[in-house]
């Protein structure tokens, strides 16, 4: 039914004089339960369906979106999109991709998700809360949620493309601290996710959260500022590293001259230990799907290989500007024309296990979370270490407080000297533990 509506939108726009048309629809049904203050707070369910219509009129772009999938409203929206295109300036890079052969991705839809109800979401949230509280009675859960979603996206365009795909996504989070006689630990939050009901594991997430906050009780100030090693957990790497690399490899940022990697294809931009992939076909990541926001098949893109910059990520528009092919990174929802972004962001695991990485540290700090600012344009970061632990001669000494860490992510990437073989899925990132040397820590 949905493809028929999209087809209708395309034909309508063509009959009104559009040279190119794309109709993109997304529908979902969602159940969610929230926690707050060590208790359940609210349960929620929603059903949405929306369509975004992009038309080109000799290079001029028009876009109109509605969350109503009836033919009469689609007809009106199409006419409005044409009207907008008539008011827009021409841009010769505006174009839609042609039909291409992609493979349907397996492993992102679980039929059992259809039976999953709001009551199950509430049950999962309650289990996660219970698991955290029973780990240790000093745990205080500030907030969290459990979300279950079945999402369909579909696309048709005037080049004959007709695509449709369904995915199920379960995701959950927990946030809070540990409290003991007036001593309050750093905040921590953990996330988990899966495509399949059988892979839902709120227990591990709750336990990791609980372990981290309990470990950051009884903090001490470090005796003095020092230069040493920084070991980031996957969560901290997600906060400090991912956004900076994702911005630098984005063709839109390159074209707007805000990417640090501009002009560096083929150059060494990081330590040889670093290999970065963007891969929406990896079904472990929750952004997995077989085609992008404009229907281009998803693929595995090796962006940085052994420290060398291999390519930028493109959608059709930015690709035309640079005279290359789209990498399948058109992104966005039905409420906006396509943007460019990463899909599943993967850092290749290393050979050592985490314990070995710790045991090799002469002097340094393990960081579980980072609270501060990271500038994705120039890579500068500064902030406070959260859930940090001080390591000397390969042994964890104590939990730290009020330690500042500052530096530059791009410089740090060339000082990457260890990557764990353990890797964690954080929604759409898959990240190992990462160790850097020569980092400046300042005592508070």
């Amino acid at each position: 039914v949905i493809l028929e509506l999209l087809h209708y939108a395309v034909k309508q726009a063509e009959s009104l004089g559009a040279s190119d048309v794309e109709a993109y629809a997304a529908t979902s049904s969602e159940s969610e339960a929230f926690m707050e203050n060590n208790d359940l707070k609210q349960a929620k369910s929603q059903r949405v369906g929306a369509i975004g219509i992009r038309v080109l009129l000799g290079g001029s772009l028009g876009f109109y979106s509605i969350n109503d999938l009836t033919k009469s409203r689609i007809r009106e929206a199409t006419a409005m999109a044409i009207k907008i295109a008539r008011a827009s300036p021409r841009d010769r890079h505006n174009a839609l991709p042609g039909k291409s052969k992609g493979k349907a991705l397996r492993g992102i839809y679980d039929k059992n998700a259809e039976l999953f109800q709001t009551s199950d979401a509430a049950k999962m949230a309650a289990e996660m809360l219970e698991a955290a509280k029973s780990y240790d009675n000093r745990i205080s859960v500030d907030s969290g949620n459990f979300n279950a979603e079945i999402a369909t996206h579909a696309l048709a365009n005037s080049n004959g493309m007709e695509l449709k795909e369904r995915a199920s996504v379960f995701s959950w989070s927990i946030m809070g601290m540990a409290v003991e006689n007036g001593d309050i630990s750093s905040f921590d939050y953990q996330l988990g996710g899966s495509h399949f009901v059988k892979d839902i594991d709120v227990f591990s997430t709750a336990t990791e959260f609980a372990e981290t906050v309990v470990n950051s009780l009884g903090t001490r100030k470090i005796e003095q500022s020092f230069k040493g090693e920084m070991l980031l957990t996957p969560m901290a790497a997600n906060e400090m590293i991912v956004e900076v690399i994702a911005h630098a490899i984005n063709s839109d940022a390159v074209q707007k001259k805000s990417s640090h990697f501009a002009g560096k294809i083929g150059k060494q931009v990081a330590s040889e230990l670093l290999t970065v992939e963007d891969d929406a076909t990896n079904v472990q990541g929750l952004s997995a799907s077989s085609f992008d926001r404009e229907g281009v098949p998803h693929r595995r893109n090796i962006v940085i290989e052994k420290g060398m910059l291999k390519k930028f990520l493109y959608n059709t528009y930015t690709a035309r500007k640079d005279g290359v092919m789209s990498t399948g990174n058109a992104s966005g929802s039905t409420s906006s024309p396509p943007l460019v972004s990463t899909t599943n962001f993967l850092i290749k695991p290393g050979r050592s296990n985490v314990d070995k990485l710790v045991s090799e540290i002469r002097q340094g700090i393990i960081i579980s979370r980072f609270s501060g600012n990271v500038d994705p344009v120039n890579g500068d970061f500064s902030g406070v270490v959260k859930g940090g632990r001080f390591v000397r001669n390969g042994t964890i000494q104590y939990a730290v407080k009020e330690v500042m860490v500052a530096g530059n992510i791009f410089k740090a990437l060339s000082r990457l000297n260890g990557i764990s073989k353990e890797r964690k899925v954080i929604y759409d990132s898959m990240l190992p533990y990462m160790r850097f040397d020569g980092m400046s820590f300042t005592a508070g």
Partner: protein
Amino acid sequence: MHTDIYVADSLRSMISSSKSATYIEGRYQSRVTSEVNFINGELERIRVVETSGCGIRVLVDGCWGFSSTSNVSDAALKESLHEATSAAHVLSQSKKTKVKGLAQSKMVTGSFKTAQNSYNNLLDIEIDQKVQVAREGEKAARSNREVKTASCVYRDMVDHKVIVNSDGANVEIYDSKPEFNITAIAKKGGQSATAHEGVCVTGGWDDLFKKRSHLECAIAASERVAKLLDARHVSGKKATVILDPAMVGLLSHEAIGHTVEADFVLSGSVVKDKIGSKVASDLVTLVDSGRSEIASNAGGTIIVDDEGVVAGRTAIIEKGILKSFLHNRESAMIFGTASTGSARAFQYSDEPLIRMRNTYIEPGPDKLTDMIKETKYGYIIKGARNGQADANGEFMFGAEEVFLIEKGEVTELLRGASISGNAFEVLQSIDMVGNEFQYDMGTGYCGKYQPAKVDGGGPYIRCTAVIGGLQQ
């Protein structure tokens, strides 16, 4: 916008058909958002987005359930009510502390416009005109040759809401909020500077450009950023500072307003036990209102909140004494007081939360010229940028430009800097309050699980704060 006429009836009959809930609320909202964005002479983005649907919230067995649907047929609403009710039932099996009830409030009935004659006006403005102001604005922002990058965004939100609940609310609201933003970045040698100019109002097209035209706004940004490029940096110190209305608004919202939201108070905010205590200088009366008090077209104007309660003037601090927190009906019940009409939802699919509206300090007796004249050594801080504030009132805000005052005269423009301190200490230190009032914070969104359009402002005020640090 085709189902609008019938949806109030549908919601009313849905509510009256149900017997099992303590409270039922049905909110219909339809929104049209338009956006045009130019960067460096090119169209970056253009779109119009329509969303509409109903959010149904129920209180059953002391638990909240919420469900939303974009389909507003009677059958879909009934299904949604059923889902919200069963969600609440499910929760009641594991939730430990039940909601005790909702405070008595006078429920509003009737039809309202958040600003006069504005609703239809904005929908009548053709997309061509929106493209034109964004394109011309961006170009004018590059009129100074030091400007290397410029952008201009025109955006508007036009809402039609219907709020019906089982306690008797029956409200229709027409709202319209256009905004216009300019960013200019200048570069010379290794130096760079950024300037922003923007305006957001509750009102129509003419209200948006009532104070200045789009070109005046753009040229102001272009000229200022070129001047800032040559300005010196300020050196860090505790000093006498005169804050402009935008900075007063930011301080009132971020550093004070959030600490008095009753849900934050319940989780242990710094002002928890301070009602009736002196928390600011006698000169300070700090207000949050859902109406546009004192000046017109404030960006956070709502008139009635999403629980159907009048969103009037709430004096948070009156002549230095902390008087009130911000409440929805649930928190008002816990505190044994009345709702302040602060329950707001961003979209039909969001549940109402305690939010601010227009937050400001009331004007006083002093002329700005006298405030400067009576300052031996100090700074005027202008152009609020984003910042951070903690639950204890500690804050750090960026300012775009700083003027040095020496012996009662403005002597030099300095580069942007940050100001920091404890908000309550800063309020205690206020010794002069200006007599000219302005809202100047409307272009931002406040984020708390969901966005909200808020505004803030005040007169110029003189106080003591720490100035320093570099700001781009």
